[in-house]
């Protein structure tokens, strides 16, 4: 990620502010610069959530379209990245809810547990099982787990993106991990040894 999006540096804040001002003014170079600075992480996040290239593209494109529409409302109360991720997560989750009627990705976690309690030699692929278990998590646990444990967002960033307190994000992560451990209980021996 380029320096202009790093909020820790005072210089980064200034650069980001200037970039936003240029985008608001309609500078196409600034718009592309903003896009290039953030698109990778936004796309990675939407892809993690959607698991589908077409959906990830849709969600990413919509994220930037909406961001350019509303950039004038951005008040620098958070970093630009956090603001963009909040838009991206919102669009992704709303889109996925609409897709949910066609997909049955939110099977009860008990179903995954049921699979997990069967003979593990019947389905030895941990990654496939883990994928099923993550898919089976409810949206609130899945989103926090993917953002924190897989994409490396902090609880503060997750809280800002989801509109929840950081403590709630921690709680959801704790509960989501517990559900995954439960769903993958028959691998426990391998991991501990």
């Amino acid at each position, binding site marked *: 990620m380029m320096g202009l999006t790093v909020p820790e540096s005072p210089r980064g804040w200034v650069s980001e502010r200037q970039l936003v001002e240029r985008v608001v003014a309609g500078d196409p170079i600034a718009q592309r610069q903003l896009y290039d600075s953030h698109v990778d992480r936004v796309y990675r996040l939407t*892809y*993690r959530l959607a698991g589908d290239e*077409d959906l990830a593209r849709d969600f990413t494109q*919509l994220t930037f*379209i909406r961001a350019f529409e509303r950039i004038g409302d951005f008040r620098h109360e958070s970093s630009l990245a956090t603001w963009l991720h909040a838009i991206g997560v919102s669009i992704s989750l709303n889109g996925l809810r609409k897709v949910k009627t066609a997909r049955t990705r*939110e099977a009860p976690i008990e179903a995954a547990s049921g699979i997990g309690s069967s003979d593990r030699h019947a389905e030895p692929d941990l990654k496939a099982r883990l*994928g099923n278990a993550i898919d089976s998590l409810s949206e609130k646990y899945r989103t926090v787990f993917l953002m924190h*444990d897989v994409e490396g967002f902090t609880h503060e960033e997750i809280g800002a993106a989801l509109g929840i307190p950081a403590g709630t994000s921690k709680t959801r992560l704790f509960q989501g991990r517990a559900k995954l451990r439960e769903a993958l209980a028959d691998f426990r021996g391998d991991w501990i040894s």
Partner: protein
Amino acid sequence: MTEDDRIDEAIRSAAQSYNRAPAVPRDEMWAAIEKARANSGPRLHVVAGGSPAAVAADRGSRNFRPGFAWWGAAAAAMLLVAAGVGIGRLTAPSGSARSAVNTRASVAVVPGNAGSLPQVADNVPRAEVGDAAEGVAARSSPDGTIERRTGAGAVTSGMESGTRAGVPRVAASGSSARRNGPVPRGLAGDAPGTDTYQVATIRHLADAEALLTSFSLETRDQKMDAQLAGWAKGLLSNTRLLLDSPAGEDARRARLLEDLELVLAQIVQLSPAAAASERELIQGSINNGQVMTRLRTAIPAGPTRGL
């Protein structure tokens, strides 16, 4: 490090390959974004097979559809006028405020509370909601049958939820009380624009709740399904207008409206000869999204709370 920590670490490590993104199609996406912004109306990258993902794209790109701005502006103006009339009625000077209070108090007394005089402030939102519920029957119901069933549904929902108890009964006299009564809490001090959209949204959500309650009734038949579809069509249009209005700027309300949009779209498309499984699918959408619960939470909380 505890056992759980080690397992979490193993899961975290294995999860890195979960939905790992391929190379980012930067230029392709940028081209689509530029095209969308330049044309002010394309649909973005429609997912093959016309999956519901297209709905998501449609929602996002709706703002760019040519002509929508005019249609939206016209509809928003209508909403503004309608809500303005409502607010005018609410804020009209009254010489019988006391009688209005008594009216509210009397209609809000429910079994178990008999003899107590509820606080006016606590009753104001109920009267507001009640009037909105009454509006369902008066404005949105396709015919008298639906109206009656809606009322029954509302009573049923009130029985299920303590906070909704009495709402239909309040509706019977709440509007007359409101016409002459003092300005309800939450409406007097707010900006007129905010009030307008709040009133419009509350009325709309009350309409939607009544429709979904009717849809959930087991006694419905094919004829009623057709009536519900017609009813849902109007509500779907209003939902989309609200989504693109300032009422849709609140994230929680927008999520509710978007979920409602999906459910209404499904009901509109439901054919009278649809299999039971199709109805179950719609009911599943309602249940999974906790749409009814969220609607009920939004409505009785009053104009300024819960929305």
